[in-house]
């Protein structure tokens, strides 16, 4: 279990995250939602130990993540960045092999190569193995990055907007992969998301942030309400239900006079 307790983060004098309390269990998918600049990425970076919180702590299976060594942390937690730099002149196999870094002493062993092969095979990426990473499509790149994180054999996985650069089919495929991963390998997944509907459909729990505060934390069906979304995103929506999932249809930004009247109240 990942446990964040009373987490505060400052950039200079601005407080970016305020009093975040959050638990993520193994095998669970938690989506972090909120408009741009609300602190989603900061939250993820705290989990990765890249940002030290001003106060509060993060424990992973009862170990303080700031007290772990880099390698130890990398065995616990995998990270799928939004995108790699535009130039990444390696084969797909090499890219996935990097996921073995926390286990490699000097050069990757035969076992490392075997694991990478298995991961590529299980994700239907074998045909790309020796292609240049730069030459494959955006959707394939995202899958390769995911494959790299899986080769890392982590207990938890952190993804920064895994679906934002993908077409609809790839979005569904990647989300399905995550769902399987959580269920079969019992991996706890935390991801920052922009798409309300994908998050509602594929997450066990949804956390919404507004100006560094946690506004809600619960199953999609409970927390995805017109009122919450209006408050967090500043848009008016209707919510339909289909197949048991809430679907958000954005209507318009909240009119200025309404905001003003709320402020006056």
């Amino acid at each position, binding site marked *: 279990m990942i446990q964040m307790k009373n987490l505060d983060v400052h950039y200079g004098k601005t407080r970016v995250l305020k009093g975040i309390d959050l638990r993520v269990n193994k095998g669970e998918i938690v989506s972090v939602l909120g408009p741009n600049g609300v602190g989603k990425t900061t939250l993820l970076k705290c989990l*990765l130990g*890249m940002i030290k919180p001003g106060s509060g702590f993060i424990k992973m299976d009862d170990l303080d993540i700031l007290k772990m060594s*880099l*390698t130890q*942390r*990398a*065995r616990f*937690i*995998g*990270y799928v*960045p939004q995108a*790699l*730099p535009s*130039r*990444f*002149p*390696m*084969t797909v*196999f*090499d*890219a996935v092999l*990097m*996921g073995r*870094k*926390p286990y*490699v002493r*000097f*050069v*990757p062993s035969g076992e490392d*190569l*075997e694991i*990478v*092969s298995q991961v*590529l*095979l299980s994700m239907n990426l*074998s045909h790309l*193995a*020796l292609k*240049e990473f*730069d030459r494959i499509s955006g959707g394939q790149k995202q899958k390769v990055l995911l494959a790299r994180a899986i080769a*890392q054999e982590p207990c938890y996985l952190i993804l920064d907007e895994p679906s934002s650069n993908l077409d609809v089919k790839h979005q569904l495929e990647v989300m399905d992969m995550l769902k399987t991963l959580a269920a079969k390998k019992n991996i706890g997944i935390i991801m920052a998301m922009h798409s309300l509907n994908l998050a509602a459909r594929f997450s066990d729990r949804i956390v919404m942030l507004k100006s560094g505060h946690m506004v809600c934390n619960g199953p999609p069906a409970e927390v995805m309400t017109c009122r919450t979304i209006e408050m967090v995103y500043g848009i008016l929506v209707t919510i339909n239900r289909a197949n048991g999932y809430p679907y958000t249809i954005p209507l318009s930004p909240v009119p200025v006079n309404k905001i003003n009247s709320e402020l006056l109240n």
Partner: protein
Amino acid sequence: MKNQYRALKCRSRVLLIFFFLLLTVIGVLSLCIGASSISVMDSILALIKDNGMARAIVLNLRLPRVFMAGLIGIGLGTAGAVFQAVLRNPLASPFTLGIGSSAGFGAVVTIIFFNGLVNEYAIVTGAFVFTLLSSFVVLGVSRYKGTTAETMILTGIALMFLFSSLSSFLQYLGTKEEVHGIVFWFFGSLSKAGYKEIILSGTMILVPIPFILRFAFDFNLMTAGDESAGALGVNVPVIRMLSIALASLMTAGAICFTGVIGFIGLVAPHIARMIFGSDHLFLIPASALIGAVLVLAADTLGRTLWLPHIIPIGIVTSFIGVPFFLFLLIRKTKEYW
């Protein structure tokens, strides 16, 4: 799939062996040709038995020169590959961080203030001290301001301008003879290479190599960005600082006796990258070998093309290196950086 990948790496291994053999062949060839007309047979015989004059020339003049050329190529090639990897910049070379111009400034200072024209070891020491000084400044600034590639490159470029203006200023004050000596040092020359120098340079160049190879897999991860490498357990700031310190030492070892031979450190890693791709486990040894081949070939041409004159190595490397590099750049079929 695993086997296909292995086959791919096997190809790289074979290519490495090929370049090693090529280096050996050029080395032997270069022992056999030179200003004095000793036959190929005599040159090779001189290595094993005493055949008088030929042995003296081959062992005392040509052999140290060949070794030194090889070492310099290895040093600059490896250092270049390391700088390009940790600074994540195709323009990086052993001189990006101001190392070349600070070495030059060191030489100028000793020539003008410490009578360096008389005592050549003084020049070497001066160049060496200032080389290390400039890399310490870069490392110091980045310790204070964050070890990002950008901070380091900008600090290096600033230092480069500072040291070259300082050099120009001192030259402006110097006498005719001193300025002549300075210009000659900047050309680069292998003529002073003796066995003592080889041992000193060789230590500085070869000792860091195992440590750098130890980081090769980490360099691969760093091409994907600091954050993502960090998330996989690479201690990016530490590796970047250590690698730069080691590569600076190698650069100092390569240039202190011979002057600034600039181009090799930029071009050898690029050629290696075109042939071997970006896996640093192969890229680094390949850059070393290709650097050695280039310096050795350039020096051999430089001392034979225009007999009895010797064209300074720094000039020849650019003359043959630049067209060759442009040729490869135009011919390349895929983006390799």
